[in-house]
C-alpha cells in the first residue's frame, strides 16, 4: 500500500496522499498519469461538456429549490418570484432552463459520436449501456423538471406522458394512479415530481462515475477505432486534453450563455408561461424539442392500425403499439454493440456505413420536425416512414451491413495513422 504512494513536492499534499491517495487518484483519472489516444478530435469534447453541464444543473437547481414551492396553487407564482424578486433568480432559472437544452445537445452529439466511431463495440459495451441508462435518467429528470413551473405545458405534458403507462397490461391503470397519487395530475403528483427531480440528478452523477470507471478500464476509443498498442499511441490526459477540453468548454459556454442572456426562451414553449389549467386543453401539446423525435414515433402508429391490416382479433391498440415503439427506439440503442456486426469500429473505414450514419442522423431530424407538428395528413405519413426507417437502420441494416460491407484497410496503429494523416487531410 504505502509503496504505491506517489511523492509530490508539496508536503501537505504528501501528508494527505499518504493517508488518502486522492491526488494520485485524480492524476490517474484526469491527470498526467492517464494515457489517452493522441488523435482524439473535437467530437471527443462532448463528454466533458455534458459532465460540466450536469454540475451546472445541480448548482443552479439547488438555488432554485431554495425558492421554489411545490404546490399547485403556488408553484407558478414561486417561479415568477424567482424571476422577479430573488437576487439573480432570473439568472439561475434561465441558466437552468437553457442548461437542460444544452445538456441534451451535448449528449446527443456525444451519442452520435459513439455511433460514428463504433465506440460501443467490444470491450466498451457496458460503458455504452451505462451511457444509455444515463440518457434515460436524463429524460426522466427533464420530464419531471418541466412539470415543476406548473404552466399549461407542464400540466398537459405530464398528463399525456403519465397516461402512457396505462397501456401496461392488467396493472396499467393502477400504475398511473399510483404515479399520480390520485385520480389525475394534481398536487401529490407535483410533490413527488419535485422529489424525483431533486433525487435523479444525483443518481445520474453516480452513473457518470460508473461510466468513467468503465471508460478508464479500456481507455477512450479514437477516430481510427484501432486500439491503443503502445506508448507511441498515447499522450497524457493532462496537459493535452485538459487544454483541449478547456478550450472546447469556452466555445460551448459562449453558445450556452449566448442563448441564456439574449434569447432565453428560444427553446421554450410560450404556452408554459400560462398558469396550468386542468379545464383548458392547449391547442397543441408539444414536448420540449429534445423529446420531439420520440413524440413522433409515439404518434406514428395508425389509429386503425389493426383494421388497416385486416387482423381481426385485436391484439394491441395503436396507442399501445406507439408506446412500445417509443421505448423500443431507445432500448434498441442499448443493443447496438450486438446489432452492429462489423468488426471495424470507425465509420472512417466503412464507406457504406458512413453514408448510412448520416442518413440515420437526418432521419432523427425528420422525426424531430414531425414531432413538432400535429399527427395528421402528410406529417403523419412522413412520420411513419421515418419511424420505420429508424428501426430498419438499427435492426436490419446494421446486422447485415457488417457481413457484406467492404471496409477500407485499417492503419497499423494510432501513431501510424497520425504520421500518415499529416500528409493526407489532417485531423
Amino acid at each position, binding site marked *: 500500500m504505502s509503496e504505491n504512494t506517489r511523492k509530490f513536492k508539496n508536503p501537505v499534499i504528501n501528508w494527505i496522499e499518504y493517508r488518502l491517495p486522492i491526488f494520485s487518484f485524480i492524476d490517474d483519472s484526469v491527470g498526467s498519469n492517464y494515457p489517452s489516444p493522441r488523435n482524439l478530435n473535437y467530437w471527443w469534447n462532448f463528454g466533458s461538456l455534458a459532465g460540466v453541464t450536469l454540475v451546472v444543473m445541480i448548482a443552479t437547481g439547488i438555488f432554485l429549490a431554495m425558492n421554489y414551492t411545490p404546490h399547485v396553487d403556488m408553484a407558478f407564482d414561486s417561479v415568477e418570484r424567482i424571476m*422577479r424578486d430573488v437576487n439573480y433568480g432570473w439568472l439561475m432559472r434561465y441558466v437552468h432552463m437553457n442548461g437542460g437544452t444544452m445538456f441534451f*445537445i451535448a449528449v446527443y452529439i456525444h451519442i452520435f459520436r459513439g455511433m460514428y466511431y463504433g465506440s460501443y463495440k467490444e470491450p466498451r459495451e457496458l460503458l455504452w449501456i451505462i451511457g444509455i441508462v444515463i440518457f434515460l435518467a436524463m429524460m426522466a429528470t427533464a420530464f419531471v423538471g418541466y412539470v415543476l413551473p406548473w404552466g399549461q405545458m407542464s400540466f398537459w405534458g405530464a398528463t399525456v406522458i403519465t397516461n402512457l403507462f396505462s397501456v401496461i397490461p392488467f396493472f396499467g391503470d393502477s400504475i398511473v394512479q399510483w404515479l399520480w397519487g390520485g385520480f389525475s395530475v394534481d398536487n401529490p403528483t407535483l410533490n413527488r415530481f419535485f422529489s424525483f427531480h431533486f433525487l435523479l440528478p444525483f443518481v445520474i452523477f453516480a452513473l457518470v462515475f460508473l461510466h468513467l470507471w468503465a471508460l478508464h478500464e479500456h481507455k477512450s476509443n479514437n477516430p481510427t477505432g484501432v486500439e491503443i498498442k503502445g506508448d507511441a499511441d498515447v499522450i497524457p490526459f493532462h*496537459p493535452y486534453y485538459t487544454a483541449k477540453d478547456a478550450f472546447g468548454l469556452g466555445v460551448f*459556454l459562449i453558445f450556452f450563455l449566448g442563448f441564456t442572456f439574449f434569447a432565453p426562451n428560444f427553446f421554450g414553449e*410560450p404556452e408554459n408561461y400560462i398558469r396550468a389549467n386542468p379545464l383548458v386543453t392547449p*391547442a397543441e401539446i408539444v414536448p420540449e424539442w429534445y423529446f420531439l423525435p420520440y413524440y413522433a414515433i409515439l404518434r406514428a402508429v395508425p389509429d386503425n392500425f389493426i383494421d388497416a391490416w385486416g387482423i381481426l382479433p385485436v391484439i394491441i391498440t395503436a396507442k399501445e403499439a406507439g408506446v412500445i415503439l417509443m421505448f423500443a427506439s431507445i432500448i434498441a440503442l442499448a443493443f447496438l454493440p450486438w446489432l452492429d456486426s462489423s468488426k471495424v469500429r470507425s465509420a472512417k473505414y466503412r464507406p457504406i456505413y458512413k453514408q448510412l450514419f448520416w442518413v440515420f442522423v437526418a432521419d432523427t431530424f425528420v422525426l*424531430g420536425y414531425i414531432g413538432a*407538428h400535429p399527427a395528421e395528413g402528410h406529417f403523419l405519413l412522413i412520420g411513419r416512414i421515418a419511424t420505420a426507417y429508424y428501426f430498419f437502420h438499427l435492426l436490419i441494416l446494421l446486422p447485415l451491413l457488417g457481413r457484406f460491407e467492404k471496409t477500407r484497410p485499417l492503419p497499423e496503429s494510432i501513431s501510424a495513422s497520425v504520421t500518415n494523416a499529416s500528409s493526407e487531410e489532417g485531423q
Partner: protein
Amino acid sequence: MGKIFIAAGLALGLSFGVFASDASASSGKAAPSQEWTFDGVFGNFDRAQLKRGYQVYQEVCAACHSLSQIYYRNLSEIGFTEDEVKKIAAEFEVPRGPDDEGETHEDGEQIMRAAKPFDKLVQPYANEQAARAANNGALPPDLSLVTKARKGGANYLHALLTGFADAPEGFKMQDGMSYNVYFPGAQIAMAPPIDDDAVEYADGTKASKDQISRDVAAFLTWTAEPELEDRKRIGIKVLIFLIIFTAMLYAVKRRVWAKLH
C-alpha cells in the same frame, strides 16, 4: 473541425427551434415585426414609453385585465419616483386586515384601506366567475406575462390591438365577438379596446391608435421581463469575457499541443 461542431450545434438548436415555432403558427396570422427599443443585444426600455404604456394599461385595459405579478413598488423601476408610486397606490383600495379586536368587517362591509407600494396592483374582478360574468362568459387573461406567453410577443400584441376590422362577407361571426385576423380563429371576445385619442398623454405624445398599442405592448414586455435590461447588460460583459478567455485558451491549447510534433 471546431467550426463544424459549432455549426452542428447551431444547426441542431436552430432547426428544432424553428420547427417548434411554426408548429402552431397555423392558428392566427403571423404578426409583422416592429422596431422596439428593447430589441437586440444592446436593447433598453424607453422609460417615457413605459410610463405612457402604464397609463394606457391603467386607463383602458385595467377595467378588464389584471396584472397579478406586479406590485405598485415595481413602478419605480419604470421611472416613477417613490412619492409618485405612493400617490398612485393610494388611489386604490384594498381589504384591510383584522384590527386589534380581530374585526375585518363593519356592518357586514369589508373595511378597506388605501393601497401601499408593497401591495399588488388591484385586480378588476374578485374572481374568475365575476370576470366572466362581466365579459359575456369570456375570461380576460392576466397580462403580466402575456408577451412571453404568445408567439410574437410585443409584435403580436401590437398587431392584435391594431388588427381589428370588419369581418369579410360570408364570415360567420358569433354574438359579441370581434373580427381580428391575428387572433387564432379570427374571432375574439374582446371589443376593440383602443382608438385614436383613447388616452391623453401627459408628455404630449400624439395618442394615435398605433402609438397607444406600441406603448402598452412595450409596457407589457416590461411586466413580463423586468430583468431584460440587467440580463442584456450582464450578458454583454459575460460574453466579451468569454470570447477573450476562450481565445486565450485556444492559444494555450495550440502551445501545449505544439510540443507533440
